């Protein structure tokens, strides 16, 4: 992984300023409670040139954006580029953010759109990475995971991708827009792939929750 697709050399990683890094070093990653008026308050403060508020928004959503990017691209450098592009896009259009707690879906939709574009820009097929760390699993989960790996490996690449994009939360409309195909085609492909996966899991006796 990591060398399978062309980079986009034209992408500039802007470096135009920074908040106080000391304020970030102690901030844990991952979803956490947003204080000070919630997201709407943070957005308003960030729009008022409050860099700490922007840092808070990024910190709150970074891990989820990272996970989506990584899942869709399977490549750490590419995922990092998408994370950065996502927050740059969100930052530039922050004044357009939907009110009333719609920031998270807006950020994730932006991330998925950029990741889908990135996947589409890579030449040839983009294989779905089937390797996952298996540490910390009890025997039952390990067996189910092995069944799942076998079932996914038995699918075609297009079927695996359809399942991955659905799992990553990409709507049929988002995928259709990125691919230039009707959303109904995407839905039909997903349904077929997921039905096949379930059959394979049933035949192996695994995959249950």
């Amino acid at each position, binding site marked *: 992984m990591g060398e399978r697709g062309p980079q986009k050399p034209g992408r500039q*990683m802007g470096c135009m300023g920074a908040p106080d890094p000391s304020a970030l070093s102690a901030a844990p990653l991952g979803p956490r409670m947003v204080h000070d008026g919630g997201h709407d308050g943070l957005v308003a403060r960030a729009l008022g040139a409050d860099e700490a508020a*922007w840092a808070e928004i*990024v910190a709150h959503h970074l891990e989820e954006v990272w996970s989506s990017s*990584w899942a869709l691209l399977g490549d750490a450098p590419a995922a990092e580029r998408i994370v950065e592009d996502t927050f740059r896009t969100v930052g530039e259009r922050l*004044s357009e953010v939907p009110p009333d707690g719609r920031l998270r879906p807006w950020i994730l939709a932006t991330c998925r759109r950029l990741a889908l574009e990135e996947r589409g820009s890579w030449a040839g097929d983009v294989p779905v990475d089937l390797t996952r760390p298996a540490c910390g699993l009890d025997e039952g989960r390990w067996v189910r995971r092995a069944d799942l790996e076998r079932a996914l490996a038995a699918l075609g690449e297009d079927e695996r991708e359809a399942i991955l994009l659905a*799992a990553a939360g990409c709507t049929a409309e988002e995928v259709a827009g990125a691919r230039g195909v009707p959303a109904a085609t995407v839905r039909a492909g997903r349904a077929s792939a*997921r039905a096949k996966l379930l059959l394979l899991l049933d035949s192996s006796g695994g995959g249950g929750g």
Partner: protein
Amino acid sequence: MSELRELLERHDRVMRLLLEGEPVLGQEPHLAGCPVCGPTAAKLAEVARWLLEAPRPRPGLLRDVVERTAARCCSAEERP
């Protein structure tokens, strides 16, 4: 008879939504009671969890992203 037909239609609708990866909002009672749709949803959720497992982002990514994006967001004078 019409109740049975309604039940089957609801089952077909939920199963189609599950397979197409569409939200099944409002169908929780059916998912909880249907011996086919409930386990199907659980299996698909486990598949999704597995596919979405990601390594932790590298230390410093948060700082780097904030440094590289804050000025774009927070420079009021650049805003149209």
